[in-house]
């Protein structure tokens, strides 16, 4: 997770570098440390350092790290020639390295030579079956080929060992959502909530999945999670506010005829509605009419 101060620092540095203020190497180090994906910038500024012999040699042994970083960024930007050059140079200075071998396999993957890349990856895994990066590459490759069920299979295999890796759980959850396998997605989101109970995004996604699943119980749970998102974000999350409204009206529809829900829930809805109206008035006054009709239709149905 990138904290807020780190992000502002990163943006400040990026701005400075973009406007020719120097500090490119510091920026690249920060990108590497925070593991953020800003491939285009990395490619641009990294290459500017690498092409300048004086700057490059002043890095000392860090030069090779930069080559690796630039190679990966280049693959991300589909500048395969640049990546190829970087990897060739790396290979020349580290003929035996597995790390360079991994880059070569990634280059194959970027070219779309799936079978060869797969072969390379599996040979790496045979040597070291616990290489997390390669496991993840395999999942990404299956996804890139459109082989979603294969990706799920690889991910499940990966999670069997590295079950505390929440990023992998998140990926799996998103894949399940895209396949409309909501029950499985709900499980993954529960896992995410467990590992990071204070991140509102997980609560929100879980609530969305539960709402989509439907059924009285799920709807009530979904509403609770929307409420928790509101609490965690201080009422700033529009999606959660809408979610509360939708859930309340859906619950009202389902529970019609049965004993009414306690009054507090409808109070929450009206509060959410007013919060929404207030926010729309402030930020998008021209769309306010759309909102009021939408809210009205929800209230009519309840």
């Amino acid at each position, binding site marked *: 997770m990138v904290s807020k101060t780190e992000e502002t620092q990163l943006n400040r540095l990026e701005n400075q570098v973009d406007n020719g203020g120097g500090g490119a190497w510091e920026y690249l180090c920060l990108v590497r440390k925070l593991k953020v994906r800003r491939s285009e910038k990395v490619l641009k500024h990294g290459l500017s350092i690498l092409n300048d012999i004086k700057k490059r040699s002043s890095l000392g042994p860090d030069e090779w790290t930069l080559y690796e970083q630039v190679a990966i960024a280049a693959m991300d930007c589909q500048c395969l020639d640049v990546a190829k050059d970087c990897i060739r140079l790396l290979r020349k200075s580290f003929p035996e390295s597995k790390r360079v071998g991994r880059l070569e396999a990634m280059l194959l993957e970027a070219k779309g030579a799936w079978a060869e890349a797969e072969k390379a990856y599996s040979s790496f895994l045979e040597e*070291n*079956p*616990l290489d997390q990066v390669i496991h993840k590459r395999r999942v990404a490759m299956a996804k890139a080929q459109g082989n979603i069920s294969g990706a799920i299979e690889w991910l499940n295999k990966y999670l*069997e*060992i*590295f*079950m*505390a*890796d929440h990023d992998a759980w998140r990926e799996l959850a998103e894949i399940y959502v895209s396949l409309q396998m909501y029950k499985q997605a709900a*499980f993954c989101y*529960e896992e995410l*909530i*467990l*590992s990071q*109970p204070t991140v509102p995004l997980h609560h929100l996604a879980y609530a969305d999945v539960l709402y989509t699943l439907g059924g009285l119980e799920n709807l009530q*749970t979904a*509403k*609770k*999670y*929307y*409420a*928790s998102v*509101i*609490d965690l974000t*201080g*009422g700033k999350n529009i999606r959660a506010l809408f979610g*509360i409204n939708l859930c309340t009206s859906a619950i009202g529809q389902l529970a019609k005829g049965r004993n009414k829900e306690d009054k*507090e*829930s409808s*109070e*929450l809805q009206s*509060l*959410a509605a*007013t*919060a929404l109206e*207030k926010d729309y008035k402030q930020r998008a006054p021209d769309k306010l009419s759309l909102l009021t009709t939408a809210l009205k239709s929800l209230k009519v149905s309840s």
Partner: protein
Amino acid sequence: MAADLVLDTAIRDWVLIPLSVVMVLIGVLRYFVSKLMRSNQVPDAKIIKEGQLIIRARNLRAAANFIPPKSFRARRFYFSNEENGLLIVPKGQVQNAQAQMFSDPNMAMDMMKKNLSMIIPQTLTFAWVNFFFSGFVAAKIPFPLTQRFRSMLQNGIDLSTVDVSYVSSRSWYFLNLFGLRGLFSLILGEENAMDDTQRMMQMSGFGFDPSKSLGAEKDSLDIVQHDWALPKFEHRAEAVLKKLAI
């Protein structure tokens, strides 16, 4: 109390400073030697899996109140049911860590390397200090201390009348041996410095048994009382929104 002992400045020049310098140099040298001898070991899949399992179970325990009761019960069952729960270690499989160590020559080899890089220089320097500098007072610390520090500061001098704030050369050696960590982390970088106290702790903690921690995790998971926190959140959300509406 006798008058202050006067320490010859030659002692400072020929004992105190050389001793400290040698200790630092040996520490640096040892770091590089151990770096040379370190073999990159492939971690065992089972151990990693158990570590991850413990993290996940701990997360479940810590954040249990954030998921619905049904989901929590399903997970708890998955972790700790008697038949094939993940946290249950079958009785027969509990392997003695010691036996495992001897069955795997790599492990023993690794440990021996670590020990060699630690014990050999230590014995040598200790012998060296003992031979050249034994039995004299090397320094005086500028504040008084109680008698209890005598064994720490005046190792090698058996005089009960000397004031405790005088430090014998052998004690100075020990102080250096254990107290140079901060300096090493300056010279060698944060993570690289590993002082002897830490090494010793590692040694004593070697017979660590993962199955035990799995069992402990299972027990604490079993006694977790699930109390779903989410219903409270509705009221809290209301309060938040009310505040916003004002």
